[in-house]
């Protein structure tokens, strides 16, 4: 059996769950292990970090965890940056949007390093300005 990367969405309130709902609508079945933590306003970052560590460990089937956060420099992202210090094998990509998530789920066979690049290019490449 081939190993796969686990995906943890670490976002502001109501963001991560909504993106997973939309991804499931588009793709039907989701091909990678996926979990979500939505950080509530005013919650304790240390307790979020403990939760994130546990979830990341259970997502990691040996190939590491791709953490996707919605806003660089915000608390969910700052929590993610502390995960490697607790022994979590991960890459974090911020600026999460639906194109990023769909693209990640379209390349479930990729290794962690490559999947992080795939996520970043999917997020950037999903933005278009109309012909106005």
């Amino acid at each position, binding site marked *: 059996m081939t190993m796969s990367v686990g995906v943890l969405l670490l976002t502001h309130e109501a963001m991560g769950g909504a993106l997973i709902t939309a991804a499931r*609508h*588009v*793709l039907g079945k989701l091909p990678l292990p996926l979990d979500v933590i939505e950080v509530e306003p005013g919650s304790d970052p240390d307790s979020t970090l403990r939760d994130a560590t546990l979830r990341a460990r259970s997502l990691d089937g040996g190939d590491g965890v791709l953490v996707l956060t919605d806003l660089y420099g915000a608390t969910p992202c700052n929590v993610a940056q502390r995960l490697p210090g607790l022994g979590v094998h991960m890459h974090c990509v911020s600026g999460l949007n639906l*194109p990023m998530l*769909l*693209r990640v789920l*379209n390349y479930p066979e990729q290794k962690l390093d490559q999947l992080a690049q795939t996520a970043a290019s*999917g997020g950037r*490449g*999903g933005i278009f300005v109309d012909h106005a």
Partner: protein
Amino acid sequence: MLERDITVSNRLGLHARASAKLVQALQGFQANIFITYRGKEVNAKSIMGVMMLAAGLGAQLRLRADGPDEEAAMAAMVDLFERKFDEGQ
């Protein structure tokens, strides 16, 4: 290399779910598969690529498959379009 022209006939066009179905159906083929619309050519195995075409009902597409299993890949792709992506309309 095989080429074939096809018209999008499902009401919603190559929207997100249809694009995902197409990409999933083609994932297992070795052939390189491309779709061209309005002069833009994209990899048919890339969901963001296919969606980027923004091809609606009536869009005229050119399908191209190139590789050892190109015939089967083309047949699978044409079948999906002809079945209107199983959307019923």
